[in-house]
């Protein structure tokens, strides 16, 4: 993939001029602020069919990856790289993590190996806004991601809720609905990522709403807007840039991260103490029992 010739980001011109300007401004700012960020790599993950690929396409402003409404069109991870003014913008689309009600470890493994030796700057965790409930499966997905890339990845994560153009259930305002939904999801994320309460404030995960549909409402300057009136593409990019500009580092996926910490080295230092414990408290104890057995052994009458 790396050898692939990086295309110019032509899709950016597809956006309404306001959006385009905003994006250019943001990316330029990033380049100044984050010195190393000549590349920005975004990983998109989530359940199947929630609109990961669509979101990728929306951000890039072109049909970079195939999208299908009814079946998974992404059998393997795909990285789309676009360059703009000397900096590279990578976005990695991945297959859905869920298959048959379980987290598909093989897909996860595939993703991990695809990401080997790449640095992830931003993780987009994608889910739908218009599902009302969160369940254990969500937690498992979050957990699988955490187990694969470490807890640190959530410092660089965005929760993206697609299908944002919904009419909320009766009696709820749109803002109220979205905040409730995102709160529920964040709770699960925190649980799955094992983020402790003290850490919640330090690493609050931003939530961004997205509407990929072509029927998305637009404002007067032709920007795609959400029911609450925000133009979401600049908003998403803005949030991404915000996350990158925090002091946390991107996640470099190397062999070590993939395999986790070497369990063979855990506790090695303690072995001499364990051995001593075993000798004095287990072997000695059993020897004492044996002595006791011999003493209390029922002897035949003649002995």
């Amino acid at each position: 993939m790396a050898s692939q010739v990086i295309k110019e980001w032509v899709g950016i011109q597809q956006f309404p001029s306001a959006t385009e300007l905003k994006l250019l401004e943001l990316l330029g700012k990033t380049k100044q602020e984050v010195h190393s960020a000549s590349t920005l790599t975004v990983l998109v993950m989530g359940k199947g069919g929630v609109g990961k690929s669509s979101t990728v396409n929306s951000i890039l402003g072109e049909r970079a990856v195939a999208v299908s409404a009814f079946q998974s069109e992404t059998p393997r991870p795909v990285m789309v790289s676009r360059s703009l003014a000397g900096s590279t913008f990578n976005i990695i689309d991945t297959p859905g993590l869920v298959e048959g009600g379980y987290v598909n470890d093989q897909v996860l493994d595939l993703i991990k190996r695809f990401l080997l030796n790449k640095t992830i700057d931003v993780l987009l965790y994608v889910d739908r806004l218009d599902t009302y409930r969160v369940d254990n499966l969500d937690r498992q997905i979050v957990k699988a991601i955490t187990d694969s890339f470490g807890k640190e990845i959530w410092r660089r994560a965005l929760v993206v809720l697609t299908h944002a153009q919904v009419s909320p259930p009766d009696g709820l305002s749109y803002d109220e609905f979205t905040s409730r939904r995102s709160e529920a999801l964040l709770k699960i994320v925190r649980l799955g990522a094992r983020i402790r309460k003290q850490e919640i404030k330090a690493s609050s995960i931003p939530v961004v709403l997205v509407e990929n549909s072509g029927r998305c409402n637009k404002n007067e300057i032709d920007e795609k807007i959400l029911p609450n009136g925000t133009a979401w593409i600049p908003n998403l990019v803005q949030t991404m840039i915000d996350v990158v500009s925090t002091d946390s580092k991107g996640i470099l996926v190397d062999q070590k991260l993939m395999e986790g910490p070497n369990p063979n080295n855990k506790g090695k230092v303690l072995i001499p103490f364990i051995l001593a414990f075993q000798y004095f408290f287990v072997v000695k104890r059993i020897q004492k029992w044996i002595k006791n057995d011999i003493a209390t052994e029922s002897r035949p009458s003649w002995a």
Partner: protein
Amino acid sequence: MASIAAPGLALSVHRSHRRLTPSTATTTTAASVPSLTIKSKYPTFPPSQNPKPSSSSPRNNFDILGSKKLQNIIKTTAAIGCGLYALSNGVSNAQHSGNGGGGSSGGSGGGGGGGGGGDSFWSKIFSPAAIAGEEESQEWDSHGLPANIVVQLNKLSGFKKYKVSDIMFLDRRRGSTVGTEDSFFEMVSLRPNGVYTKAQLTKELETLATSGMFEKVDLDAKTNPDGTVGVTISFLESTWQSADRFRCINVGLMPQSKPIEMDPDMTEKEKLEYYRSQEKDYRRRIERSRPCLLPPPVQREILQMLREQGAVSARLLQKIRDRVQQWYHENGYACAQVVNFGNLNTKEVVCEVVEGDITQMVVQFQDKLGNVCEGNTQYPVVRRELPRQLRQGQVFNIEAGKQALRNINSLALFSNIEVNPRPDEKNEGGIIVEIKLKELEQKSAEVSTEWSIVPGRGGRPTLASIQPGGTVSFEHRNLKGLNRSILGSVTTSNFLNPQDDLAFKLEYVHPYLDGVYNSRNRTLKASCFNSRKLSPVFTGGPGVDEVPPIWVDRAGLKANITENFTRQSKFTYGLVMEEITTRDESSHISSRGQRVLPSGGISADGPPTTLSETGIDRMAFLQANITRDNTKFINGTIVGERNVFQVDQGLGIGSKFPFFNRHQLTMTRFVQLKQVEEGVGKAPPPVLVLHGHYGGCVGDLPSYDAFTLGGPYSVRGYNMGEIGAARNILELAAEMRIPVRNTHVYAFAEHGNDLGSSKDVKGNPTEVYRRMGHGSSYGVGVKLGLVRAEYAVDHNSGTGAIFFRFGERF
């Protein structure tokens, strides 16, 4: 009974006969220290040489021994059976009469007093004598006298063999005949329909007269019309003053008191003097005697008998004798005999017992023909197996003898073992324990072959698929006579291509590491081995079709020292150096497990199989294992507790410098739920088995050393490793065993858990092969001989299956 000869006509033998101590004369009231000799010679059981249908307690003993031996000592059964019981006094007696020919059943063959040393028990073994008696019964002579007349014994012809049609006992005091169940009846060796000469009848009478049981005894014959004679023995039972004390003493190895002939011309004063000195002598004898083993409860029981009875009669003494001997024999003191009752006519009854003190212990080696020879085995090797109760100075006990037999047998050095007590001729009342051993061949070599037909191309056997396989082994036992041995074996299923599965083993065993005289029992074992096993780590979980198998080959050296604390509890520690090679199905070294991709392809990037990730590991580690086992069998069911702790401590020597501490603790308790009476044929108790097994490892853990869950010895109802392979595991099991007829049925529940440590095994094989990491099962089963048939439900998938397994789970 009217035909009984008039008193005075029959030959009567008075008590003041040679063998009786003169003071036995109960008629003379002056006799202050009378004593009654029931038996002067050892061994004595109720005298009767003929086979008797009624079984006495020693015979029961015999049966018990017989069956036990079948279980424990199969090899040596027959020999031991005789050996243990060949109390050779019995032998000589019986053989004597047998060879003598004339001595029909040898009723009095033993000679006066000695009264047929044999009894039901001995004669069962040495039946030749009895058979001889029966054969002779074919020929007998008619009395040749008119019918229905009473003939005195001395009037009978010395040349005729009389057939005795019946025997009657007539108690003159009571004036009635005595039933066959009376204890006196046992004293006579004559049997109805036996054929006896006059000499034999005379001897019989003499025996009775000298027994001291009777004040007066006569024997006469009544002629029958058919030429046979009916024998009537009329007697007056001896009685003494009542007593209220009982004392039992061990007079073994003490010289028999020698009576000084009483001069009939003694004056009254002299007589008094004489009795006084006798009394003093006897008191001294009691003082010098050792206390006997008879426990107080039995003594009290006898005292009770004495008190109830009032006057001490011969019958009572017989009863006491029987009770005392019964206790001894029931407790295994097979050589113990009541030899005398002393101090009669005083307030105290003194029971003199020869308990059978061991004066000598002899170990004897025999060659194949049974001749005594020089043995290769060193004496202390045998000696240390003998219980202390078989040493010189102890009282011989048959149980100790059996124990010795078992212990020596467990050495596996001898083809035939006999433990044989025999009386010490030089030391009256003493026993010499003879241990006769036949040694096994020191060197042995064995080749066994087998041909196997394996499916060839297309499933049909072809010529090339017929494989010659087999084992070549050699053994050199008992090096230097110290039970050291070298053993080697090579096994392959295909001699034409042995590199495929050659299994070899070379072992050296060196017992008595601390010296053969040291009671510390440590054994050094060094071996060189290889093995090949299918790794349960690379096994699929439920629903996973097939995981390409990984074979783990181990080859190496091992040296360890085992210290035995008891028969079952021991401590082993040593060093293991081994090379582990992991191979795939086609015997190629594989460094990683394979896995089947969803697309159906196989990728070889599964979990690493070895620590070095090359497929070959070398390592050295220390291994220690302590086993505490106090289980025992109650009516065939195991009860007790077993704890095993094992540690493998890596030393950092080997590929990738493996440093680890791998430990496991197993605790098993067999809880007896009901007290039951122990004994052959009694029902075993219901037992609850509780089992826990913890395994853990800190440090380097190659996959082949990971703990696996599932399988017949882990969590039943699953395949080997079906639940997972982890760094730390915990297994819990409970089983309830209920005896049913000769076997038992059981219900169990088991659980295995990886404690979340599956991910701590490199490559996480549990997850890669889609296993749960934990699982439970429950089921029921029945034990059929060695096979367990059980129905187990695997809780993960909820399905049940029937399994047949060999051996025990715990």
